């Protein structure tokens, strides 16, 4: 059976025109639309077979009910629990997660914390002049990737939305456009650029300020070289920006994870504001997971804040750098953790994992990964976007509903969380709280 309009649940591009061949309740082929990474996800990998609880150092298989009871017990007893992940699952699950966090006075945080959290902090300083990806496709004649390498990280991005795509005023595709890539390394994306600007590692902030000064007309103050870039190259970039009818900067973790962090993004946005005095200019973070933005959206409308929300006092205290997962773990603040649809074992600094090895850890995920190695309760879940449906937000805030293409025996994240919440409430009632 052929299923059309399938939505890819991999990266922030959320391509929604996939065609998938399903037979015997199994994805046999991805016929159209997906990049190699998305295809790999759809075709599937080995699963966690059963819920399990760690006993004497090794995981012992158990029933869903037992695992859920155990998880609820850990969470209900914790004084500073952390609930982390939420970016590779649907908004419906995120909502239950926030309610659970509120119930147990937890800190809830998503993977934005270690990818575009700094972008959010920057938006909170200066805002974000942006647009949807279709705007870029139809109008942009200048595309800048800064500290972003879509060829590796968002393989369909250029084709669907930016440099290569064809739209209303860009009918000739890349012939109608210029591509500038700014990076420390000459990435695969840099290799196809019209202009590649190699920047000295960690000096993005200076370069943004120099471009702002040039865009505003203060050529005389800018020195001959800034952050490893010659003034001549800077002036050329500024010329392209001013001459564009519609410019867009996409930025990635090359900027958010470098020295300067969120302030690099503040400056990138300030550069966009300066460019906007000449022409239409927008900027957009290259959000990583397919629903990292969705969690930020849900968490914002429910708590008032997008991530790193500390609910220990019953209301939200938001302060990344304090209430963010890395800080909590490196500072050894939390006494229990639940990880859903994420893998801190692979993606957190070693220092944090050292602490995780010492506290009770619950993992909800379809797949075994490094986190499984130290998890005390493991609860397998259905794969969102393949085995269960739900809402997600693309990197440009467009909500799209994931489709279900095959059936499963595994419970979806939302249902697992609801059961844990119910169990936690039962425990609290017993305790007379």
């Amino acid at each position, binding site marked *: 059976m052929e299923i059309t309009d399938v939505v890819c649940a991999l990266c922030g591009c959320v391509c929604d025109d996939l065609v998938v061949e399903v037979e015997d309740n199994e994805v046999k082929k991805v016929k159209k639309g997906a990049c190699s990474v998305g295809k790999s996800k759809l075709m599937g990998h080995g699963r966690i077979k059963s819920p399990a609880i760690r006993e004497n150092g090794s995981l012992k298989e158990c029933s869903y009910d037992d695992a859920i009871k155990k998880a609820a017990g850990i969470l209900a007893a914790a004084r500073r629990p952390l609930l982390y992940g939420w970016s590779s699952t649907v908004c419906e699950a995120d909502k239950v997660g926030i309610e659970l966090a509120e119930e147990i006075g937890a800190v809830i945080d998503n993977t934005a914390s270690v990818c575009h959290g700094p972008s959010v902090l920057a938006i909170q300083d200066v805002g974000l002049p942006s647009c949807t990806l279709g705007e870029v496709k139809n109008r942009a004649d200048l595309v800048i990737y800064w500290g972003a390498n879509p060829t590796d990280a968002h393989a369909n991005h250029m084709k669907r939305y930016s440099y290569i795509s064809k739209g209303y005023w860009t009918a000739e595709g890349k012939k109608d456009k210029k591509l500038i890539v700014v990076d420390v390394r*000459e990435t695969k994306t840099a290799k196809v650029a019209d202009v590649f600007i190699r920047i000295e*590692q960690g000096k993005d902030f200076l370069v943004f300020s120099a471009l702002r000064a040039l865009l505003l007309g203060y050529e005389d103050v800018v020195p001959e070289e800034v952050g490893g870039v010659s003034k001549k190259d800077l002036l050329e970039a500024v010329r392209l920006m001013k001459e564009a009818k519609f410019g867009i900067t996409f930025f990635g973790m090359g900027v958010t994870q470098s020295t300067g962090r969120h302030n690099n993004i503040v400056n990138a946005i300030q550069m966009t504001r300066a460019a906007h005095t000449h022409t239409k200019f927008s900027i957009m973070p290259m959000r990583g997971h397919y629903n990292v933005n969705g969690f930020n959206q849900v968490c914002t409308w429910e708590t008032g804040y997008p991530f790193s929300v500390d609910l220990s006092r019953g209301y939200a205290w938001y302060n*990344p750098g304090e209430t963010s997962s*890395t800080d909590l773990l490196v500072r050894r603040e939390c006494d229990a953790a639940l990880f859903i649809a994420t893998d801190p074992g*692979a993606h957190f600094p070693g220092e944090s994992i050292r602490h995780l090895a010492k506290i009770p850890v619950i993992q909800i995920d379809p797949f075994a990964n490094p986190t499984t190695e130290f998890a005390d309760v493991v609860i397998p879940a259905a794969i969102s976007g393949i085995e269960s449906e739900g809402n997600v937000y693309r990197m440009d805030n467009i909500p799209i509903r994931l489709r279900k293409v095959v059936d499963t025996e595994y419970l979806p994240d939302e249902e697992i969380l609801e059961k844990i919440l119910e169990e936690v409430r039962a425990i609290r009632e017993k305790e007379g709280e």
Partner: protein
Amino acid sequence: MNARLISGRTIAQGQNLDNKLSEEYYNAVAICEMNEKDMEKIGVSADENVEVRTSYGEVVVKAKEGGGNPEGIAFIPMGPWANAVVSGDTHGAGMPQYKGIDAEIEKSEEKVLPVKELMQRYMG
């Protein structure tokens, strides 16, 4: 050799996100991409191992040529090997320093630890 270390996504790393205990993931992620001149400097050829040391830890990975790195920049795909050596200090912003860590890189005869063994280092 002193280098600045950065980590980030690659296609092969992405293809194996749900498959991290596999050999494919190990082959794709337990690597360090360097400029050819840097590799010459430390006398290592592709597929030989290097030890990467920072003030936050050390890890052994396989050396790879290129990756578009200029001299003095080394790249390890995001994953547990890179994270063995990155800093958890977020400077009040919540974000660890995944990019731009001062590292020392030398040729190594040690083996590249598979995921499970790597994780074992954090236990106990």
